[in-house]
């Protein structure tokens, strides 16, 4: 099984050439022989060239993994080779056909809407304030535009990932 993997903007090719034990994985130009065992949940123990690693794998979306190695997280987007390219999970505020969305980064409560419909906003301007865990967090516009939609009001409870405001 071969994958293209995007890590911090760089594309890598990773191919599992042997799935048994020890497994063989080809990463770009080098090959790794891996003795690995499943400890439980998303936790694996890997032994590579005598080095022992504890690895936690968390799935955040299709092919979108957070791989924890020695306490350090690595966000990697995997694509199975041959499959049609999927767009990776969109980051908050990312441009999609000229639309910018202000997305709640966590569950919480809307304490203040700082803009009104049709208002012009500039990059970095505060758009809405969401409170969670006794902290107010001001969400800012990632770029200039006009407020097209305000989907919440002050006092509304929101879930992580909810689109709160749309700017065009």
């Amino acid at each position, binding site marked *: *099984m071969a*994958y293209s*993997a995007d*890590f*911090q903007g760089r594309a*890598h090719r*990773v*191919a*599992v050439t042997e*799935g*048994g*034990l020890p*497994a063989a*994985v080809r*990463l770009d130009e*080098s090959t*790794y022989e*891996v003795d*690995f*065992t*499943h400890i439980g*949940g*998303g*936790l*694996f123990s*890997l032994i*590579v060239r005598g080095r022992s*690693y504890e*690895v*936690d*794998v*968390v799935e955040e979306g299709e*092919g979108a*993994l957070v*791989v*924890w*190695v*020695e*306490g*350090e*997280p*690595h*966000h*990697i987007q*995997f694509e*199975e080779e041959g499959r049609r390219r999927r767009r990776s999970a969109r980051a908050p505020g990312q441009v999609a056909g000229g639309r910018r969305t202000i997305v709640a*980064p*966590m*569950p*919480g*409560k809307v304490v203040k809407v700082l803009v009104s419909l049709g208002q012009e906003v500039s990059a970095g301007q505060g758009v809405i304030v969401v409170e*969670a*865990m*006794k*902290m107010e*967090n001001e969400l800012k516009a990632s770029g200039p535009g006009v407020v097209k939609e305000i989907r919440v009001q002050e006092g509304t409870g929101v879930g*992580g990932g909810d689109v709160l405001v749309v700017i065009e």
Partner: protein
Amino acid sequence: MFKKILIANRGEIAVRVIRACREMGIGTVAVYSEADRAALHVRLADEAYLIGPPPSAQSYLKVDRVIETAKVSGAEAIHPGYGFLSENPEFALRVEQEGLAFVGPTSQAIRAMGGKTSARSLATKAGVTVVPGTTRDLTDQEVLQAAKEIGLPVLIKASAGGGGKGMRIASTEAELAGAIRAARSEASSAFGNPAIYVERYLERARHIEMQILADKAGNVVYLGERECSLQRRHQKVIEESPSPFVDADLRRRLGKAAVKLAKAAGYTNAGTLEFLVDSAKNFYFLELNARLQVEHPVTEMVTGLDLVKEQIRIAAGEPLSVRQEEIELRGHAIECRIYAEDPFNNFMPSPGRIHVLRNPTGPGIRIDSGIYEGCEVPIFYDPIVAKLIAWGQDRAEAIGRMRRALREYAILGVKTSIPFHHRILDDPQFLKGEFHTQFLEKWLAEGFKEESGSLAEIALVAGALYLHTKKPPSPAPAGQAAPAESLWKLAARHEAMRRR
């Protein structure tokens, strides 16, 4: 001694107090909101009572419900922990009036120390230096005048302030007018009170606090300082005791000042006096925290005392268990606060379910925690979910143990500050003990990103293997298998191979 104590709090501090009571053979009564039915403090307490809906204002801050629950359950005392009702003089007064014991200072002492300006004037009367500035509310004119006398830069602060709100720095005369306006408006919106006063702004100062214990007979002792300069948005991140900056002489001077002020205020129980200390080792009193501090464990680790037990004995009218000359600091202790927030995303709060929790153990390591694997971190409360404390014979060993423990520590499902701590503990300035209250902000200004280093290859390889094992392992027969299942198949196959 009390037979039963109600703990008017939640999370790690409620668990901490429950443990102290259990070790003393005292019954424990937990209170909980509807969001906390499955919380650890409810599981561990002898008794537990629902006191309201999730929002604090309707549960943990409800004075009547808490006191009513104490009476129903037959508790003789109430421990407020920190936050919530812990420094609310009306609550302390009600507890006193209801004939219950409040595990903390008297309502008068809390009130006397509550207002920033009143605490400042009390300190001045007691002969304890405060940050140069005014001790009463000022008009804009008076502020301008005072600023000139004190000397720039100055800090304009809301009298009713807290948590860094209603604070403005003015470095030049030109900035004064704007700073005053901003401070007043923020103060009135945040606290409904536009009153402000002025302090000299001390740059590159350290935040150092002194722990004291005072019994009802008027005995007061100090237990050494805590170094709390590593802060983010006025929120402490890492604390240690002793401070790498404090020598025996400064410690004694800080301790004597703390004791003097506590006596002047008629203060009882455990308390903490916060000071700013400049590079010349001059210190200035900031405020007295009339409660147990989040960071109390580092003092416990070096003194060997159990502060919560001392609090309870004092509240029960017992004299202090130690005299000043009996108190000695052994070794060095460091605490890392574990917040449920995302260090890679501007420290956004990160509530949710904790899917994986692996606590470090072993020599010199202590964890005070309010979480367990599978628990929910609610959106309604403070983001501190645990505290990791490391003790060593000296600072170097304590740091070594903390780094070792942080690497063993795994919390997945919610984002936490653990990766943030990893980096701080690798910082050469931190290792040298050379930092001040603006250190972390400056440090963070350079940005905090994921490592792209040597472990990336392993992460890429492991990720591919993980996805691969989710497929029907070729050449094995096809057919979709659930991830977990096939993982277990794999594990089983591996098992089989090993057994050979």
